[in-house]
């Protein structure tokens, strides 16, 4: 029978190697600011787009809003591999369930699957998620922590920029906001993270989920566009005068073959 869960067999050997001076490989983390809120018609999820490898920006424009079902999306903070793979796994389980039952997926189901999976790995899978969606029972928003606990709230933030984003939410959140206002509030919360947290940066991505539609807005706001280069080192054609043109391509005829194309009509003269 295949052994389930992590195998800790090599931990002793790794610890010994680290003592001897071996540096373990750096994980790609999504420094991150992610946020979500419940508004009048549904859910708005938001995320920044910077992925870091310790102090280096590994990806300037990665996608942190992951697909779980047409009506359920999940923002992920923590180790990039963990968030990506956990959401893909649960998405596949949800798809199979949807096909089996013929019904729209429920957000509470995604929440249970995620938390039961993460709890089993006792926090070693570093995935902190903001899960949101609209199902037949209404809009739902959860925050899922690496150790497997969940919270259900009208507005949540996760990641290194979560304090900055939460400050914006706590100052401006109201229940039953209109869509445009909700989008701007999430955008502002993510922007607070982008500009005040070093682990977050570049653009703001949004995902608006309602009972009728899902808008995946990537990017919603390009807050850090690279400056346009003013100078141009390219020399224009004609800078160097052409004195003489001499095209000589050496070739050798090795074989001559005539083939009739099937079904071709004879040319009319």
């Amino acid at each position: 029978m295949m052994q389930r869960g992590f195998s800790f067999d090599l931990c002793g050997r790794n610890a010994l190697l680290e003592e001897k001076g071996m540096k373990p490989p750096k994980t790609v983390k999504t420094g991150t600011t992610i946020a979500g809120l419940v508004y009048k018609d549904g859910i708005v999820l938001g995320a920044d787009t910077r992925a870091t490898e310790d102090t280096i920006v590994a990806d300037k424009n990665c996608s942190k809003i992951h697909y779980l079902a047409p009506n359920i999306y999940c923002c992920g903070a923590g180790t990039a591999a963990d968030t990506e793979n956990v959401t893909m796994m649960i998405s596949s389980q949800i798809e199979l369930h949807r096909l089996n039952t013929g019904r729209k997926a429920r957000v509470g189901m995604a929440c249970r699957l995620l938390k039961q999976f993460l709890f089993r790995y006792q926090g070693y899978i570093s995935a902190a998620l903001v899960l949101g969606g609209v199902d037949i029972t209404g809009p739902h928003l959860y925050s899922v922590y690496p150790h497997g606990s969940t919270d259900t709230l009208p507005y949540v933030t996760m990641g290194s920029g979560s304090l900055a984003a939460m400050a914006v939410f706590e100052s401006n959140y109201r229940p039953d906001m209109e869509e445009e206002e909700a989008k701007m509030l999430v955008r502002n919360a993510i922007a607070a993270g982008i500009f005040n947290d070093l682990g977050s940066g570049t653009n703001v991505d949004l995902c608006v989920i309602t009972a009728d539609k899902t808008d995946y807005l990537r990017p919603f706001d390009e807050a850090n566009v690279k400056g346009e280069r003013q100078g141009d080192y390219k020399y224009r054609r004609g800078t160097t005068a052409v004195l003489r043109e001499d095209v000589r391509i050496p070739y050798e005829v090795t074989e001559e073959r005539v083939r009739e194309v099937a079904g071709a009509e004879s040319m009319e003269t």
Partner: protein
Amino acid sequence: MSMSQCWCVGLVGSYGSLARFRSISRLLRVNDETVIAASGDYADFQFVKELIEQKVLDDELLVDSHSYSPSSVFSWLTRVLYYRRTRMNPLWNTYLVAGVHEGESFLGQVDLLGVAYESPTLATGYGAYMAQPLLRDAYEKNPAMSGDEAKTLLESCLRVLFYRDARSLNKFEIATVTPDGVTIDQPRAVETSWDIGKMVKGYD
């Protein structure tokens, strides 16, 4: 153009997670132009307070109509803190120095390491993570805000901090420095709303 400073400090003196003293002031009015606020070790703040008060007294005895400007106080404080750091015996505080001198406003922060800088907006502790983004955004949108607008902004920051800092109390003082002098308001609380509790049921 007259400039002024406006800022606030919570009134709690904690002993770890125990809110031991709930009405102590962390503000010090140096003179008509300068105010200092402290966070960190309260005993070290009391020590610095006495040093400054003695200095101000000695200066007043000269009767030369010159008093310490906010930037001089800041400079002195930086030197003292850095000196203590070099002796590996720091005064374990983070200070905010603010004031108005000859129409120019001043706002600076020094910490136990002697790291010192000036900025239009400053915040220590959890404020650096939660209040600073709000302050910076508001300052960017409106660099010439009025005293009342500043006070409202600070109150909204304090509200957020009371919501989210588990070691805070809903009790604070606000000091304002204008070319006309220093005013430290009475200790106050912010209105809070816990309405979202009605929207939450269970955890999944």
